[in-house]
């Protein structure tokens, strides 16, 4: 067994959320610059210039990239040989989130009761935590502040196996068409296929962590990613939805085994501000 202090978990989570909210990934920046080179719409080009400038300002001054600093979502791989001491895991994670949002000038966007009171919890907690128990004695954190402009454009279809790859492609492209300018294009599109309804959504969001430019290892899925991306960019929605050739920067598919009777397909959209950070204890 390896002992890990709860305090270290808190500090790590705090650091990761601060980093994710201030500093955009190099892959996003590179993809936006490449898109700028290929963009033919004049307004599209000026939008992309603004975004690139925005990332420079946020990173340089350590201020939030976007005012919607999101709900705090974490995918955690917890080694089964880890023994947490001096506190409990969930509280340590929530304390880390709270400190990042309270001390880092990040907006608190979590309301307690979603229907009636809708009172802000004031700390951006509770965090949304997905935990996998894995072999080993380490804890891996993958964190993302998830904004709701894009989250609200999520979709789920419980498709028939007979719908096949064509059905999946049409559903994903149609979801992005309907979303139009709302999710802050150019977006990154996460697609989760298989499992149950809920599992498909969880892996769709996890797919958003993949670096732009990397494709699925299975050539058939990689091909589907490329075809969907091309069809999405052919919609002409463009940067900020004001017209152009850059509507999405990437389509990332993940799949998982499913039932003989079904083919769940989930789409989770991320705005261009694809804020992620990863760290290991």
């Amino acid at each position, binding site marked *: 067994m390896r002992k890990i202090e709860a305090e270290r978990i808190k500090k790590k989570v705090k650091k990761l959320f601060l980093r994710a909210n201030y500093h955009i990934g190099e892959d996003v920046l590179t993809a936006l610059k490449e898109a700028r080179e290929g963009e033919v719409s004049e307004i599209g080009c000026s939008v992309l210039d603004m975004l690139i400038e*925005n990332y420079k300002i946020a990173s340089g001054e350590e201020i939030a990239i976007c005012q919607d600093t999101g709900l705090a979502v974490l995918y955690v791989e917890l080694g089964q040989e880890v023994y947490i001491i001096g506190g409990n895991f969930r509280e340590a994670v929530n304390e880390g989130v709270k400190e990042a949002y309270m001390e880092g000038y990040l907006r608190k966007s979590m309301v307690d009761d979603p229907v009636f009171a809708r009172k802000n919890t004031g700390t951006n907690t509770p965090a949304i935590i997905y935990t996998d128990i894995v072999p080993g004695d380490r804890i891996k954190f993958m964190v993302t502040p998830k904004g709701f*402009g894009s989250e609200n454009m999520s979709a789920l279809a419980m498709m028939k196996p007979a719908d096949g790859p064509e059905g999946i492609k049409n559903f994903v492209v149609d979801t992005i068409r309907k979303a*139009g300018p709302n999710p802050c294009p150019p977006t990154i599109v996460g697609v989760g296929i298989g499992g149950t309804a809920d599992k498909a959504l969880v892996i769709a969001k996890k797919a958003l962590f993949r670096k732009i430019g990397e494709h699925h290892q299975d050539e058939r899925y990689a091909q589907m990613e490329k075809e969907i991306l091309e069809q999405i960019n052919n919609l002409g929605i463009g940067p900020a939805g004001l017209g152009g050739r850059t509507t999405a920067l990437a389509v990332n598919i993940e799949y998982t085994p499913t039932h003989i009777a079904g083919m769940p397909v989930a789409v989770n959209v991320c705005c261009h501000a694809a804020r992620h950070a990863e760290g290991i204890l």
Partner: protein
Amino acid sequence: MAKIVKIVTPLTDEVVSTLKAGDMVSITGYIYTGRDAAHKRLFSLLQKGEKLPLEIRNQIIYYVGPAPAKPGYACGSAGPTTSYRMDPYAPALLDKGLKGMIGKGLRSKEVIESMKKNNAVYFHAVGGAAALIAKSIKKSEVVAYEDLGAEAIHRYYVEDFPVIVVIDSAGNNFYETEPLKYAK
């Protein structure tokens, strides 16, 4: 590069009528903020026939819930939120003389019809350019609903605040017309 139209607030009907979908605009003057929770409260006052806590005639409302300001900053990052959530409330405010809305994303038919009827304009601010946009916000004060925190109604003094006319007072909608030019 397209010419940038400079306007000041409060707006006049004359200025609103000259703004066309696709115009790049820079705004100087006072604007008000409001998003989901504040709109719900304003709408409920109007339904009861009560007075609003601010005069909205000829004003612009910016759909935003800013990040907290770091010391030394007038305002934290402050990009637009998605506008359609304010659609159920917007026509009532337009009927009261609101002339401009700043946000991002699609609007309902009812909002666009109300904009045509009331001669109002919908501006697009670039979503996710929040740190950059905040540079044009020089002063910020809460004018109503302080208990709502980031969702409170603020009054901003802005200089050269960058927006694009996306739906003009004649109902021309850049979100509909532009993508068609680039679709394949």
